[in-house]
């Protein structure tokens, strides 16, 4: 037993329980956020210490502690810390259950970390549900009609998607006789071409897995829940859903498809094409639906469907690339990193603005630049990154992910993706235009709390830093992708 390899998860679980207990004991509820952030930092410290060591598996090959998993753990811990900082104003309005709010954020981060580590179907399922059920509750935390509605929609569709996913897992287990991803990979290879064609249950299982995880990452045609859930949920939780939950889905997909179904190469070519088609439809649907939106959270919902489409370009490249090639995996890692920073930054700025103007409508953002220029500048930088223009992280990420796909013969997909980026510029830049050129409705300043300022500074610097220091981080993503053991 190597329990020390689980130190990040164990310390985070302990922090979550401690936060609930602390809520009962203390009067100054602001300390709960401090305790949560400390727990996240401790967990991140454990993770960093382990980073770079060779891959190991623990608990009978159910958990793989490799650089790929550690990369995602750091990403989730960072996002959770930003969500907690961004929730400080929100949480102070909650009369009760503030401890539970923070604990649920930590527990769903724990579930996502386990998703990235899990190398076995049962563990993947339990981790996925730990993350999801916490998020269902968080989506409905405000208890107003919109929030409850978004929570109900998320739960019903999420549970249906879980059932579909489980049926796929059952079929994969039935045809291979094991739930361990590496062993599934060996079984699939030993079946041979004829063996797989004679086993339609395995193919159906793979398709159902794509459908089940497609829901998590908001891939077309499983994206219907996104706009309503994003609009109704508390804004920090919308940010959490759009970034962390999506990244966790991608972590699992990359691990399952590269470890279990990566070989034989014609099989990976087949699912690569499936992802390519889903990517093309996803980004087109997301971008075109985002154009007429008037509510900024809803617009970001559609834009996150489009971003999932760009990310699936990486999955397609992963399937099409020859075996042993990790260009698809590493481009996904870097894209997720830059998307996480930019989208979190944009949401934190939106939280700061909507909190004061008390409206989610884009037209009410009019003239914000005159009232608080720094806030508007930060939001602009993040939006520029989401479009994929220099000098921001998104440019490098898109350049890298589309370049990887083009190298592997997916030029048609890259052309669609670039055209889509142009479409996306319309709605992202409309927000920028309204902020900078619109007339302010009042001259009153829009002050924001210290926690929001810290979070916004970190993300804005991150967006610019990822552009300037892209090279070492791409190298880190590549080494993490290579360390994806089984």
């Amino acid at each position, binding site marked *: 037993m190597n329990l020390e390899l689980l130190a990040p998860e164990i310390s985070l679980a302990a922090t979550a329980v401690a936060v609930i207990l602390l809520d009962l004991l203390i009067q100054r509820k602001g300390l709960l956020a401090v305790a949560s952030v400390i727990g996240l930092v401790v967990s991140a410290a454990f993770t960093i210490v382990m980073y770079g060591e060779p891959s190991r598996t623990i608990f009978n090959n159910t958990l793989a502690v490799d650089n790929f998993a550690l990369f995602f753990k750091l990403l989730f811990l960072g996002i959770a810390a930003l969500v907690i900082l961004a929730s400080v104003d929100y949480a102070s309005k909650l009369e009760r259950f503030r401890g539970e709010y923070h604990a649920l954020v930590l527990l769903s981060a724990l579930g996502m970390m386990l998703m990235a580590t899990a190398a076995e179907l049962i563990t993947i399922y339990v981790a996925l549900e730990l993350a999801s059920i916490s998020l269902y*509750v968080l989506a409905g935390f405000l208890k107003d009609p*919109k929030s409850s509605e978004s929570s109900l929609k998320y*739960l019903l569709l999420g549970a*249906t998607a879980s*059932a579909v996913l489980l049926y796929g897992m059952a079929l994969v*287990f039935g045809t291979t006789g094991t739930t361990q991803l590496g062993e599934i990979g060996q079984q699939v290879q030993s079946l041979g071409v004829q063996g797989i064609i004679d086993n339609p249950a395995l193919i159906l299982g793979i398709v159902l897995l794509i459908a089940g995880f497609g829901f998590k990452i908001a891939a077309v045609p499983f994206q219907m829940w996104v*706009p309503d859930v994003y609009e109704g949920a508390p804004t920090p939780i919308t940010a959490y859903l759009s970034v962390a939950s999506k990244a966790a889905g991608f972590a699992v997909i990359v691990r399952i498809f590269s470890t279990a179904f990566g070989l034989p190469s014609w099989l990976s070519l087949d699912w690569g094409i499936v992802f390519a088609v889903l990517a093309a439809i996803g980004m087109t649907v997301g971008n075109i639906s985002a154009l007429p939106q008037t509510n900024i959270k809803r617009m970001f919902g559609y834009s996150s469907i489009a971003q999932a489409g760009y990310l699936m370009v990486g999955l397609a490249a992963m399937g099409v690339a020859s075996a042993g090639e990790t260009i698809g995996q590493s481009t996904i890692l870097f894209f997720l990193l830059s998307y996480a920073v930019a989208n979190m930054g944009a949401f934190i700025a939106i939280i700061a603005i909507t909190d004061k103007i008390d409206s989610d409508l884009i037209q009410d953002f009019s003239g914000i630049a005159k009232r608080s220029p720094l806030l508007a500048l930060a939001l602009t930088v993040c939006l520029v990154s989401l479009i994929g223009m220099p000098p921001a992280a998104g440019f490098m990420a898109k350049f890298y992910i589309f370049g990887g796909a083009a190298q592997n013969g997916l030029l048609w997909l890259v052309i669609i993706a670039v055209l889509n980026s142009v479409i996306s510029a319309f709605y992202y830049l409309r927000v920028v235009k309204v902020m900078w050129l619109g007339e302010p409705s009042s001259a009153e300043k829009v002050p924001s709390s210290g926690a929001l300022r810290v979070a916004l500074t970190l993300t804005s610097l991150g967006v610019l830093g990822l552009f300037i220091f892209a090279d070492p981080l791409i190298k880190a993503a590549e080494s993490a992708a290579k360390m994806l053991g089984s």
Partner: protein
Amino acid sequence: MSIGLEHYLVLSAVLFAIGLYGALSKRNTIAILLCIEIMLNAVNIAMVAFSRYVASEMLTGHVFAIFIMAVAAAEAAVGLAIIIAIYRQRGTVDPTDIDSMKR
């Protein structure tokens, strides 16, 4: 006629299809929740049948089924809590009436 793996799989597939149809068509959120449970139990039947006939030396499928039951219970608890919250706010559990956000 002896009962074999196929029989269990057909039963599981039929149950899953019934559950999926119900989850997508029912006009009562509690009924939708029940239909999701039917889908999960269809999966359980398939898991246990595969475990018995394909990998009988291991109990993986049985263990998986137990985990599914435990998680499904947690999911149902959260689901019912949310439905109660919705019912208190609106006095209805019909999903077609729960559409305060525009499409």
